[in-house]
C-alpha cells in the first residue's frame, strides 16, 4: 500500500522535504516512524510524538491503510 507522510518543523528540516509517498507492507505507524527516524536521524522516540492520520489526531496503534496521509507531530510550541 502507499502512504503519504507529511513532515513539519524539525522533522521537515531533517528530512529535507515536507512530504513524500512511501510504499509499505507493514500497517504499523510505529514501524514506519522507526524506519524514518533511522533514515533521517529524527531525535524523538515514537511515543514522544502525536500521530495524525488524514488530518485527524489518531491513536498511535491505528493501522495504516492504502492512501492514508500520516504526520508525526513533535511536541507543539505555538503561542
Amino acid at each position, binding site marked *: 500500500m502507499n502512504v503519504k507522510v507529511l513532515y513539519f*518543523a524539525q522533522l521537515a*528540516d531533517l528530512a529535507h522535504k515536507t512530504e513524500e509517498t512511501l510504499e509499505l507492507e507493514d500497517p504499523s505507524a510505529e514501524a514506519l516512524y522507526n524506519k524514518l527516524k533511522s533514515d533521517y536521524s529524527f531525535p524523538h522516540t515514537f511515543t514522544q510524538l502525536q500521530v495524525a492520520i488524514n*488530518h*485527524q489526531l489518531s491513536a498511535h496503534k491505528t493501522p495504516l491503510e492504502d492512501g492514508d496521509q500520516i504526520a508525526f*507531530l513533535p511536541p507543539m510550541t*505555538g*503561542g
Partner: protein
Amino acid sequence: MKFELTENVIEPSKLREQMLSLSAGAYCSYEGWVRDHNKGKTVSELHYSCYPELAPSVAGAILAEAKEKFKIKDAAIVHRSGTLQIGEIAVWIGVTADHRDATFSASRYIIDNVKFRLPVWKKETYKDSKSSWIENHICG
C-alpha cells in the same frame, strides 16, 4: 467562536471589534508578542511552522471546551504562521462574558491549551544567525 491561522500581521483592534456585544459586561484579551530575547540569547526573528489541515479542528475543540467549562459568550483564537519580526503578535485570544471571572478563566484555559495542543512549532533565529526549534515550552 472563531479560529484563524494567518500569514498576515495580526490586528487586535479589528479582532476586538468582532467581539463587541451590548449584552457582554467583560472582555479579556491576551497577546503573545515576539520578544527580542529568550534564555539569554538575542532573538532576531521567529518562524512558525504549522499544520493547517489539522489546526482548525484542534482550535475548535479548545474553544468548545472553554465554552462548556466557563460561562462565556464568545471566544476567538488567531495564530500567526510564517516568519515574524520582533514585536509582532504571535497569538491573539479574545473572550467575552457577562462577568470578568469567566473571561479570565477562559482566556487562560485557551492560551494554555493553544500552546500545548495547536499544531504549530516555533523556530527562533538568533543574532548570530543560528536558529533552533524550541524544544520545550518556556511559557510566555
